[in-house]
């Protein structure tokens, strides 16, 4: 229970269905240090909201402290990825390495049979009864299956997504009808542990050397100017380059080269690619024996595009799109869909 409307409604629905529900909220980072002005701390407020909802539902509620695990499993990876010139996806790591791992173990220790979250996704037990498929949430604008691609069968078997088959406005409407105190709370945005959205400052604070100066180069290797650290850029970025384009056409970030602190820039056409490889690939049901036609999604807000995926063994895969895709970013996930069903996914190399 994050204190948001989605997990609150998830808990409410389960309680209404007669399940014995225990509310758990994760304390993930300490924002109390150095706090000089009162009332600016969001995380404590969210935990407080979760407690109010649990109280309204008359279920027990506990805050579990996962600061250490969150730092080791999510934040460190986030920092390392940026420093390596990649664009990290911390929410996916948090799901597979924390929520459906450490938190699920805690829940099991308390005798819980399943872990429910407020994700917009669906888990379905196959007809034969011993395998679980993962599907998109029914609200296309809210679907979060992209962030859940790395769940294993064992994790899916114990996962429950009570709001996955409801659209967001219905979830809010339900919260209002039940009088939940968070019914009109705005959706959370961006990365939870960087409340001011300034991930550049966050990265530089953790690894000062990430802020080393470097240069912009074009595709031919010509130096076009200098910049204040590659972690300030992501593939596909156009704003904030402060570069005079030699051709007057807009310039985009094409690639990041951490070894020599170079940011490669070029025209939009150079951002388009048809092929990618991925590692750490997870197949929800089973690894396909041959090439598989899928719709592949390369960002949370990307319209999955027709592609052919081939398993390369050792959790690697190759994806070839039918048409070129814009800004394929290393560090993001590529998730393969067959209709609504997640076939698998991996981390873009």
């Amino acid at each position, binding site marked *: 229970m994050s204190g948001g409307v989605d997990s609150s409604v998830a808990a409410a629905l389960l309680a209404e269905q007669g399940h014995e529900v225990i509310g758990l909220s994760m304390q993930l980072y300490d924002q*109390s240090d150095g706090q000089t002005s009162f009332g600016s701390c969001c995380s*404590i407020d969210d935990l407080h909201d979760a407690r109010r909802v649990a109280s309204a539902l008359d279920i027990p509620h506990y*805050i*579990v402290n996962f600061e250490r695990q969150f730092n080791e499993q999510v934040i460190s990876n986030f920092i390392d990825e940026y420093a390596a010139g990649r664009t990290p996806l911390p929410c996916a790591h948090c799901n597979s390495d924390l929520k459906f791992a450490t938190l699920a*173990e*805690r829940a099991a*220790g*308390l005798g819980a049979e399943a872990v429910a979250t407020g994700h917009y996704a669906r888990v379905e037990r196959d007809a034969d009864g011993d395998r679980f498929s993962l599907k998109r949430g029914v609200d296309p604008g809210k679907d979060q299956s992209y962030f859940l691609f790395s769940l294993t069968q064992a994790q899916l078997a114990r996962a429950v997504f009570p709001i996955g088959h409801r659209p967001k406005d219905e979830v809010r409407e339900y919260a209002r009808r039940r009088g939940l105190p968070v019914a009109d709370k705005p959706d959370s945005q961006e990365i939870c542990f960087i409340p001011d959205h300034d991930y550049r400052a966050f990265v530089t604070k953790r690894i000062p050397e990430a802020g080393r100066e470097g240069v912009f180069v074009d595709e031919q290797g010509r130096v076009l100017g200098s910049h204040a650290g590659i972690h300030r850029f992501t593939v596909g970025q156009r704003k904030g380059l402060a570069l005079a384009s030699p051709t007057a056409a807009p310039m985009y970030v094409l690639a990041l080269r951490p070894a020599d602190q170079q940011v490669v820039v070029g025209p939009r056409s150079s951002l388009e690619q048809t092929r990618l490889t991925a590692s750490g690939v997870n197949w929800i049901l089973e690894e396909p024996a041959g090439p598989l036609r899928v719709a592949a999604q390369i960002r949370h807000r990307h319209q999955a595009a027709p592609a052919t995926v081939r398993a390369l063994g050792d959790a690697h895969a190759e994806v070839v799109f039918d048409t070129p895709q814009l800004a394929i970013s290393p560090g993001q996930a590529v998730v393969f869909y067959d209709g609504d069903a997640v076939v698998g996914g991996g981390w873009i190399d």
Partner: protein
Amino acid sequence: MRVYFDYNATTPLAPDVTEAVVRATRDVFGNASSVHHFGQQAKAAMDDARSAVAALVNGDPSEIVFTSGGTESDNFAIRGAADALEPTGRRHLIASAVEHEAVLNTLRSLARKGWRTTLLPVDHTGIVSADRLRDAITADTAVVSVMQANNEIGTIQPIAELAAIAHEHGALMHTDAVQSAGKIPVDVRALGVDLLSLSAHKFNGPKGAGVLWIKRGTRMQPIVTGGKHERNRRAGTENVPAIAGLGVAAHLAAGKLSSEGARIAALRDRLEAGILGGVAGTAVNGAVDARVPNTTNISFERVEAESLLIALDLEGIAVSTGSACSSGTLEPSHVLRAMGLPTHRTQSSLRFSLGMFSTQEEVDRVVEVLPRLVEKLRGLTRKAG
């Protein structure tokens, strides 16, 4: 059956206290500062309470200042003495490393205003040694603050010995007696202190009422300024119903200190023996002898205290990992860390604290339930590891 073994966090009201609070709330609404009959009634209720609390700590009623609770009393003791002594050139404060946050954070706050502060280390049982204080104290030390009994482990400190050292150097001695008052004899003269804090809700009184005992003649500045309440020492219209309840709670506690102490110690020892004998890999944290009778702090090897606490609550058994944190989350105990316990042990320790309504059935229920819960949590740890 719900079992409440968290009396060090707070206690339920004694029935006589509830009655006194209700009666005062209903019948004694006057402002104690008023001249008329209604004011005099309130004043009389407070005088009764003042005498009862004074008797509990062997002080004089004129030395009792009512506050909003233990935290305010600790703030008042340290800030009030620091303010009063600053003109004399003293700029140094000493406390033990295992104090309550009310003391530790007050020192931190004063450190930001230029005061030097020293935290005295403790040994592996949580006790402050006189030698450590001798090493730390200087000619400009204003206040030494050491709690009489620790909230997390119950360990009792050698306050009289420490007070003598403080006085040799002209410093004031404060003791936070929040966890000892009502549990063991607290005698301000025998302890030799200048300032002593206590709180009503730790001994079956109401929340929102506490006391700072200030030895007659001690130079203090008020920290809450306003009207001439409490002989100019603490401004603000008095919380008469809570103070009336405090008085009754003090009277009740004083009357049965030894009999109740022995009863609760027997229950605590039964609980402790039951856990140590019934659950492998358990050990008591803190001093075993120099301890208040109601507290035991036990570590459960290879178990996250956080999980065990929740599992117990789901079984209807309320315990604690130590001092309740404001955010409701669980942080590694500064007390257990100061004792030098390794991280795996500070994170696997639970505090059981008993009191007025605790029974042998409750103790036996906890002893019966614990092995199963611990086994389950350990099984998961093994799989995960």
